């Protein structure tokens, strides 16, 4: 029998500092690592712990893969301290990923906040790989401050891609930081946007409060609940629907998600309460 808890050993080949609290780790898996954009992996350090993270690279990138991690607790602080050449354990991929076949022929609106940009970067890069399959891609990203916005250099390149529109916002601009764009929570970017709601799918990922208000804002604009894709966060130990920690309503986030459509939940507002 396959042991669902077994990990593979990878080697850290590069660390990219994205913001004061966020780093991207480039991992050599020793061979092709197959995953679907939106799926997650359990990443950890031997004897320390592990946590669920979504690769932030395109799913066409099979090795090395990139994983963006925010420093939020014991394990992530330890992982932020490791150096190139260190061993990182990895298991997965788990979950469902984005159903890209349902995105075909549609306009894709991607809305992210904070470290929620990581799975959306994977989605974006995967979509861009076959951009002719989609009507266009609009990206709205937000961060707390200019210094907290990640993937800054790459975002500049994204904006140049034909068929892509990029909108950025920060909640506030502290003294000493430069910013010439929009200031306000990410939903302020959505208000002026005009799109064909019948033919638009939206993918949202970010802190719970951002997910909640972004969803409400998009529904108000007329996006169908079945076209509103949420990448959910929950406590996930096992990754395969055994430990029960990640249940939201009767779903296992790890197995039935982490990508859900808004209409799957009976009481979606309560899940972010």
């Amino acid at each position, binding site marked *: 029998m396959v*042991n669902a808890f077994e990990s593979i050993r990878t080697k850290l080949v590069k660390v990219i500092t994205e913001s004061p609290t966020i780093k991207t780790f480039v991992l050599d898996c020793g061979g092709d690592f197959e995953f679907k954009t939106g799926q997650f992996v359990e990443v950890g350090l031997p004897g320390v712990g592990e946590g669920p993270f979504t690769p932030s690279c395109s799913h066409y990138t099979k090795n090395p893969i990139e994983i963006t991690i*925010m420093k*939020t607790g014991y394990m992530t602080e330890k992982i932020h301290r490791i150096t190139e050449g260190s061993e990182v354990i990895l298991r997965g991929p788990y979950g469902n990923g984005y159903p890209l076949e349902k995105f075909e022929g549609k306009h894709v609106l991607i809305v992210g906040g904070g470290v929620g940009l990581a799975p959306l970067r994977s989605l974006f890069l995967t979509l861009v790989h076959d951009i002719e399959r989609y009507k266009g891609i609009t990206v709205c990203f937000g961060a707390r401050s200019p210094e907290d916005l990640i993937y800054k250099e790459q975002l500049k390149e994204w904006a140049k891609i034909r068929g892509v529109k990029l909108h950025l916002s920060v909640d506030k601009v502290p003294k000493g930081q430069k910013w010439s764009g929009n200031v306000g929570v990410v939903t302020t970017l959505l208000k002026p946007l005009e799109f064909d709601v019948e033919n638009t799918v939206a993918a949202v990922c970010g802190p719970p409060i951002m997910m909640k208000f972004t969803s409400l804002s998009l529904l108000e604009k007329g996006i169908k609940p079945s076209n509103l894709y949420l990448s959910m966060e929950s406590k996930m130990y*096992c990754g395969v629907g055994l430990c029960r920690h990640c249940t939201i309503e009767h779903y296992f986030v790890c197995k039935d998600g982490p990508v859900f459509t808004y209409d799957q939940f009976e009481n979606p507002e309560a899940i972010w309460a």
Partner: protein
Amino acid sequence: MLCYPEELISYLLSTGKTVYAPFKHSGEYYFEILTEDNKQELFLGGFRPADPIKLLLFPARVELLDIPKLPEIIILGVNNCDLQAVGFLDKALLGEFPDPYYAEIRNKTLLIGIDCKEVKGSCHCILQGYEPYPESIYDLSISEVGGMFVLKSGSEKGEKLLEDFSKGHRILEDIPDIDRVIEKNRELVKRELEQLNSGWSISSHTEERKLEPLKEAVDSCIECGGCNFVCPTCYCFMLNDESRKSHFSKVRSWDACQLKGYARVAGGGNPRAELYERFNHRYACKFTYTVRQFGISACTGCGRCIEVCPASIDIRATARKLTIKK
């Protein structure tokens, strides 16, 4: 098939497998290892033991990476509430991604169920749609009639055991009307249970329930998690990486959804920070989520949660509040 109880017990001991059976201490039953020395003290057919059967099949703490080859075990004298709990655990833990450790223990386990001759004040299997005698999941079942054991196999494993046992032991053909006697004995226990639970409404275990924050019921809860730990179907676990010198291990240990940190995510966010939310979640999980996930409710009516609760919270009262009146 009829046999003499002492012959079956001697035979089970002779198989070389570890046999667990119920023994009574201070008014409660506990599964202990049966030996030649203590076999006179074993009591079969009492009410369900104080500890849930998951203690034997789903240990509270195990190292996961190397699944050891475990010895074969026999659990003798399992009440139906615990048999059905094993049925539930099988559905939950042997599905699409089987838990390798549980699978290993389960494959090596032979379950011998028994009709309940006694009931306890907290017993309420009938409210959950179950009977006080083995209905399914058992490999072998025992009904006691006139000091003899009536044996029935429920699986290939049980059939094999009966076949081996019948070689060299005194086996009697069923006497006329034996089924009627068994039925009568079962009816008596069932009536006792019905009387005991007459204050509670009887509902099917798959009946739809409404769920709402149970703010009143939660007032007295002290968040000890005892109800989770003694429940034979609660199987939530944590996975921790541990290290001792150069030895790293992944450890699986029980967790309890009533504890505050249970659902807390990185950064401190907690979708069920309030006690009533966790309390509500427990009932939603038992009566709604698991029915949708595995087609089966996660309460078998063993009543252990009622007895362990220092705040005297009775699942029957709470479940009644949730039941939709039709």
